[in-house]
């Protein structure tokens, strides 16, 4: 009797266990969010994130659809793992057209036309250059959400006035200012390209120099896999880069560059205890400097920007810029509404009113930009004779990072440029 009872008990326990396991297996399916909300993933934090939340707040007010914002600075691993787990965010706003192409090829993204944003509608709001960047295989996947010029150099207008420096129009003039600063006992430059994940600032240095020394055609060819990194033009541009990024002219020397982060570098120049005079990075530096680093900065007096000077007169000064594109991983009515919303001029106006971004949207007039710093950037973007997209962001997968690592090697061993470039070429060969 007793034995039988224990048998029954065992059987029941087993049954419960098996049932429990199947239950967990079933519930392990991706959790469904409440119907009236969407998740948007991007890499912004700080002032850039606050600006975006203002846009989503307006969207929620209009439609009643809640927007959950997920911030992932290291967005590639995040997107990759969530896709593999079958639980991607609804929308990702990603900075790399190259990676959008990778996702599109893997079938992870929905085409915009299947989401109700027709090609003609998009063409009404964006120029063909932007749309091409958001496309892969002839189909449109990404809504150009925000844009920035990466061809501006940040300086201190009051310091320039004090030493009677003029805005440099050529590389030679920029080098002359650099030398004068040095001669006056000041540190001319700060560059933040170190821990962790700030090596991309070096890729921007390289791109501006390359566009001005090799020209737009070669630039496009290099970053789309049609020209090898072993081409002499690449080594030449890398060498020119080390005319400024060397132990003489940057704060704490090359080691200091590798020990400083992107925001740390801004602080070195525009922070309350300033140590260097010039900083190069995109238009977004203005928002970070005045918003996060030092709220006492005065545009036009203690902070200002000028366009990247020309290096070869015949090549003028092409504008290198970057943009973030919104792509959809899922097709729901809410996702459709959101994409439609951020492609409108109204959303763009709210976004640019925060001074954090410029909008690639045609329907956002220059007058909607409150800050003179941003207005200068918009003017540069709008009047650019040649616009080139950030080359490292065009590289497939995570090669944008690998390229930055290679440039970290370049500034440390300028004598080894050739072998560093051929190693990099070996890695990227066949990856396009």
């Amino acid at each position, binding site marked *: 009797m007793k034995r039988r009872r224990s048998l029954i008990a065992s059987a029941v326990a087993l049954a419960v266990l098996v049932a429990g396991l199947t239950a967990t297996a079933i519930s392990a399916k991706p959790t469904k969010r409440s119907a009236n909300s969407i998740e948007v993933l991007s890499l912004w934090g700080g002032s850039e994130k606050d600006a975006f939340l203002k846009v989503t707040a307006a969207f929620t007010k209009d439609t009643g659809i809640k927007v959950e914002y997920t911030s992932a600075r290291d967005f590639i691993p995040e997107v990759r793992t969530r896709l593999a787990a079958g639980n991607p965010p609804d929308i990702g706003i990603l900075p790399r057209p190259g990676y959008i192409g990778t996702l599109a090829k893997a079938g992870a993204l929905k085409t915009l036309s299947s989401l109700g944003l027709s090609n003609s509608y998009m063409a009404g709001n964006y120029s063909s250059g932007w749309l091409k960047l958001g496309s892969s295989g002839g189909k449109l996947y990404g809504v150009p959400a925000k844009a920035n010029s990466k061809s501006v150099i940040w300086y201190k207008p009051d310091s320039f006035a004090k030493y009677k420096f003029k805005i440099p129009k050529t590389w030679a003039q920029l080098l002359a200012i650099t030398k004068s600063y040095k001669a006056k006992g000041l540190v001319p430059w700060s560059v933040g390209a170190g821990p962790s994940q700030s090596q991309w600032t070096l890729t921007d240095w390289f791109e501006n120099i390359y566009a001005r020394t090799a020209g737009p055609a070669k630039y496009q060819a290099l970053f789309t896999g049609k020209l090898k990194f072993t081409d002499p033009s690449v080594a030449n541009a890398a060498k020119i880069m080390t005319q400024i990024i060397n132990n003489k002219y940057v704060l704490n020397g090359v080691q*200091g560059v590798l*020990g400083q982060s992107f925001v740390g570098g801004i602080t070195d120049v525009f922070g309350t205890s300033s140590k260097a005079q010039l900083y190069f990075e995109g238009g977004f530096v203005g928002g970070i400097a005045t918003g996060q680093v030092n709220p006492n900065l005065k545009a036009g007096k203690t902070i200002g920007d000028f366009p990247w000077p020309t290096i070869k007169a015949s090549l003028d000064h092409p504008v290198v810029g970057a943009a973030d594109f919104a792509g959809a991983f899922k097709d729901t009515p809410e996702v459709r509404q959101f994409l439609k919303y951020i492609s409108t001029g109204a959303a763009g106006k709210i976004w640019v009113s925060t001074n954090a971004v410029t909008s690639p949207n045609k329907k956002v007039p220059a007058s909607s930009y409150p800050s003179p710093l941003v207005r200068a950037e918009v003017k540069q973007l709008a009047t650019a004779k040649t616009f080139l997209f950030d080359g490292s962001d065009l590289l497939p997968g995570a090669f944008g990072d690998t390229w930055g690592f290679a440039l970290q090697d370049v500034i440390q061993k300028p004598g080894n440029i050739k072998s560093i470039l051929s190693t990099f070429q070996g890695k990227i060969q066949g990856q396009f």
Partner: protein
Amino acid sequence: MSTQPLTTPVAAPPPPSEGRRIRPWSVFERLRGMLFVLPALIVLSTFLIYPAYYTIRLAFYEGSFNFGFAHYLGIDNFKELLTNDKDFLDASKFPPSGALINNLRWVIFYISLSLIIGLGLAVLAVRVRYERAVKTAIFVPMAIAATAVGIIWLFVYSPNPDTGVLNALLRGFDSGFHPIAWLGRPNLVNYALIFAYIWASVGFVMVVLSAAIKGIPAEIMEAARVDGAGEFNIFRRIMIPMLSLPISVVTIWLFINVIKVFDIIYVMTGGGPGTSSRVIAFTMYEETFLNGRPGYGAAVAVIMLVVLLPVMILNVRRFRSEKVVA
């Protein structure tokens, strides 16, 4: 002579289950036994055995976007890793470099320094009146998450002497001192990381060893002192031999820690500058998730497993032998 008392009690008690095994319902009894083990077994196989099998199998494929088994490659991944991937192992020049060599650096410096510092602190802490305060202070970093440790040491190592404590300190000694970017120099970065991690784990070593020191019978020490042994001889000839077991436990713990070190590197350098501070675990992450090569990343994981396996076997063996001793 000495084996006599040990062997007899083992052989003496009659195996208790022997009598029962003949009874017919012992099958259910056994089933019930299995049932008790089942939950642990299920958890272990879902979260350990199955993923391990999956990873090992994946290491022989190129792997698809969704971590599926696509494009069988045989041992090509391993070949590429060990012979052609200069970021993982570059044996073409001397000294060799790469993630594997960096990890070896970690093994040598992290383990030996943690042990020496930890043991030194344990021996000294016992002798001071404010022992508890000292030990607490040294143990606190152990309770800090590795991410926070990384951020703290990012500040310490900053090349800007206003935030970089280390550079400020050195400048205090020598006003003409030029700040060093500890994390920006390929020849320094690994040691800087190792030191930060030692700071975070030396407390554990100290606590374990100091407990073990207290377990050494006082009579032995006193007898040695009476016989005229100096403090150094007591330390070398009595403490060290009597601490050999806890020291080996701690060493294995440190070894496992160091082979899978990742978090602090991710936070502090991201494997940089360039690729100079990558280790095995970081390479696995980089290849799998950033470069999107799941098969290749899995091959790195398998190599990590192979490195760890002998140590784990050693560990399990020692646990078994300990049982006999007790």
